[in-house]
């Protein structure tokens, strides 16, 4: 089975400084891939390139075997779900309207959308009673669940998550990690998650891609990273996180 997304020689510079060195990466179908690394290592850049929030300076990105072109970009974006740290929920819309926004925009039958919404509420453990609430009336964890529902609404082939749990307190975070893992497994969801938390990466990722200074340093399982580090940076990164956990 071929990769869902294939990046070849993709690079990006901001104001002359390289955010991403020429990079190859493939995202496997049905798997959860985690991008991890210190701040500014290029992991978010990689994610944003895939949904074309930014344009690459060089290289090609293929989605489902076809290169991404600007003219059909909005059609492509509808096949990708995107969840960010603050949720990105629109404050003038209720939770329901946020989730149903695209379905309504594309004039999907309302009854189907409602049914899908009910399923998603069960899947993400979000109370249907809260669907009429506005984002300001919801807690951080509830907002992320709505954001996840919105991203999953059109049954996307790829789910991109940019530090989705970064702003949550530890208990809520742990609960959501567990739920995410179940959801991905149940939906056989191809997912690409960005985090800087190694424990989260180890828990959720089938495969971990460790980045530093705009390059991929090593990709593999958490065991590979620990047992067969590709460089001293890998060991350093793992030890830094472990020592934090010990304290």
């Amino acid at each position, binding site marked *: 089975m071929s990769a869902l997304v294939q990046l070849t020689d993709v690079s990006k510079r901001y104001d002359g400084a390289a955010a991403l060195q020429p990079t190859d990466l493939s995202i496997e179908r049905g798997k959860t891939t985690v991008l991890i690394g210190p701040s500014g290592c290029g992991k978010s850049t990689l994610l944003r390139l895939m949904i074309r929030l930014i344009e690459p300076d060089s290289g090609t990105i293929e989605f489902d075997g076809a290169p991404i072109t600007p003219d059909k970009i909005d*059609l492509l974006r509808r096949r990708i779900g995107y969840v960010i740290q603050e949720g990105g929920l629109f404050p003038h819309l209720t939770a329901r309207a946020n989730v149903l926004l695209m379905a309504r925009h594309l004039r999907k039958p309302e009854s189907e959308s409602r049914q899908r919404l009910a399923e998603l509420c069960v899947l993400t453990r979000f109370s249907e009673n809260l669907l009429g609430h506005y984002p300001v009336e919801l807690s951080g964890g509830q907002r992320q669940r709505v954001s996840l529902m919105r991203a999953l609404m059109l049954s996307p082939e790829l789910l991109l998550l940019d530090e989705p749990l970064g702003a949550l307190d530890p208990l809520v975070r742990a609960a959501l990690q567990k739920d995410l893992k179940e959801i991905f497994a149940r939906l056989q969801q191809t997912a690409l998650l960005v985090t800087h938390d190694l424990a989260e990466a180890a828990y959720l990722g089938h495969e971990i891609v460790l980045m530093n200074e705009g390059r991929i340093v090593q990709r593999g399982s958490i065991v590979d990273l620990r047992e067969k580090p590709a460089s001293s940076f890998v060991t350093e990164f793992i030890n830094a996180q472990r020592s934090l956990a010990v304290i």
Partner: protein
Amino acid sequence: MKRIWNPGIQELCRSILFFSCFLGFQIFNSSAFPAEKIVIGSKKFTESYVLGEIAKRTLNDAGIPAEHRQGMGGTIILWEALRTGQIDAYPEYTGTIAEEILKNRLRSRREPRDAEGQRESVDERDRVNQSTSPAKMREALAKSGVGMTASLGFNNTYALVMRRDKAQSLGLLKISDLRNHPELKIGLTHEFLDRQDGWRPLVARYQLNPRSVIGIDHALGYAALKNGSIDVKDAYSTDAKIVQYDLVTLEDDSQFFPRYDAIFLYRLALPGSTIAALRKLEGTLNEQKMIRLNATAERTKDYTRAASLYFGDAARSTSPGGGESFSHKLARWTSRHLELAGFSLLLSVIVGVPLGIWASRGGAIGQVILGFTGVVQTIPSLALLALLVPLPFFGISARTAIAALFLYGLLPIVRNTATGLQDIPRSLRESAIALGLEPGARLRKIFLPIASRSILGGIKTSAVINVGTATLAALIGAGGLGEPILSGLNLNDHVTILQGAIPAAVLALLVQGLFDLLDRVLIPKGLRL
């Protein structure tokens, strides 16, 4: 929320659009084609109003339909309006023609350095006056397609006036006596301060050295004179207030002031019968009679009645305007005021919101848009009106007032739209993009609703500014609640001023309240929690 938002907005826009098209049509109808009537203009002071009424009645009596646009502004506005055919005739004074209207033409025939204007010597100035015989004046005016009647019979020259008790206690009789009293406070009309035959050459001629000179509106100046805020002011020698306030005229002992014989200026293109009717007024008014007419106008607040004295009628009101009930007048002023403010606001919104969206994208174009609307805002409203009046499409009409108000209304709307959109957090902006909404849908469904509070805030500011500034429309005869304020100022009549000022203030409050209500309807609930 979305479903409430969209049809609600659309319906509102549709009804506003319909309403405004109707208004626009009405305004266009009422001012663009004045039904071939002869239009008499007048300047913003009592005597000019009265003379304008007399001319209107004279023409009407001769079977020529005529209307009178009262108090359109100062010399330049009236002259431009006449020259460009927006009005057909207006009362003027020979001295003003020589010194203001024809100054460049007459001077350029002499030495080029005279263009320096104010610095010319007094002797040279006298030569200008002497060189402008009525025949020469006619010749020069004819080049602009303008004719001039002979004198109506009185000389309304400038004069300096003081309170009688003050003048007597200081022993002041002549202008040259002011030389010994530099401590006296001088309050002058802005026009007199700037005129070629005004304050500066007068100071030079009499070698005065006053310590305090301020500019003050003519009618307000009388009140200031009365309560002692100023000691000396300029006046017209046929001014009824000289008698009313028991003022003395300081003798022009160096014969500084030129003659200001009252005449009518008219367009040479007018039919011969119209010109003949106007010329019947020649030599029919002397100074005493004019002072009496002015006094009647100021006492009764009714120019038509004052004019009817000229025709020997009993002092009865003949015009529909004079007999109009207050509530009827108030309704007329208010509806015109709302037309001006509402229509201009609508234009500001229609143009300002898209400009704001454009400006929000930043870059050079954004800078240009914000810069332009900002500069417009800094032009004083009177100056903006005066700039628009000579332009072909505008002239003395409601269109000019609407155009000026529209330009003033732009900045708050453009700026608030731009900042409202720019203040949307990047995360929301990117979420809208990442969802796969097309650019138009992003703007309509996400960005504009989120920025709605800021945009509506801008519209509210513009609305309140427009309702206030629309009072200035009366300066160019466009009507509205400025009309009573303006004539009240001229008559120094507080009641008349308040008849315009109070409704204008109430309107501003109502507009504010209306927009507070609109906020509740138009700003999505999620943004108000």
